């Protein structure tokens, strides 16, 4: 049965194009469906344009949700990228 897993992070910086690309490339390595939610907007984490279209900025709360056999690993990987990529000075 596919597992569902979710974790949230508060961004330490804006989510720019380059981290959005890294995030989409990383999400594509998992078979689980992965989505990001910011406020009322959601995007497929595997779609770089969708992720950039969220316009997520410093201080916003991003929820990463995955559903599938590798949901836990997928969420951990995406959270790590969000933490690193939006770190101030990164």
């Amino acid at each position: 049965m596919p597992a569902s897993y979710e974790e949230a992070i508060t961004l330490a910086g804006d989510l720019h194009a380059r981290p959005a690309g890294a995030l989409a490339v990383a999400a594509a390595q998992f078979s689980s469906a992965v989505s990001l939610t910011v406020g009322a907007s959601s995007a497929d984490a595997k779609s770089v344009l969708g992720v950039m279209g969220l316009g997520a900025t410093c201080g916003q709360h991003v929820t990463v949700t995955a559903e599938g056999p590798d949901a836990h690993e997928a969420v951990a990987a995406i959270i790590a990228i969000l933490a690193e990529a939006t770190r101030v000075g990164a």
Partner: protein
Amino acid sequence: MSLDARVGIVLVSHSAALADGAAELAAQVSGGTVAIIPAGGTDDGRLGTSAAKVERALKLADGGAGVVIVPDLGSAVLTVRALLGEPGDLPTPVEVADAPFVEGVVAATVAAAGGANIKAVLAAAEEARHARKL
């Protein structure tokens, strides 16, 4: 999986500067693991398109998994279609994306970097038609 050949991307623009810049941007966003070859301008450096440049770009972009071409405006499509319609030793498969230039190139390149096959890379480029930026 990460050792598989990536789909290559060719940018066909009337402007060499536009093709070069879009390729540079897409390489940055996608992490630099995909062959993104610009084919912009005429052979003598004017605004326009060149079948010879596109042909060279296709050969450079091909890593064995096929190539997706993203054209900028109408007559770039005509140049590409005319080239693909001629017999020759071009790489296969080759697909032409009906997509906005910058968004299409970025979406296609990121999909290719993620290991997507040529149909999925083409679909990523064409979904860019519906992506909102605001």
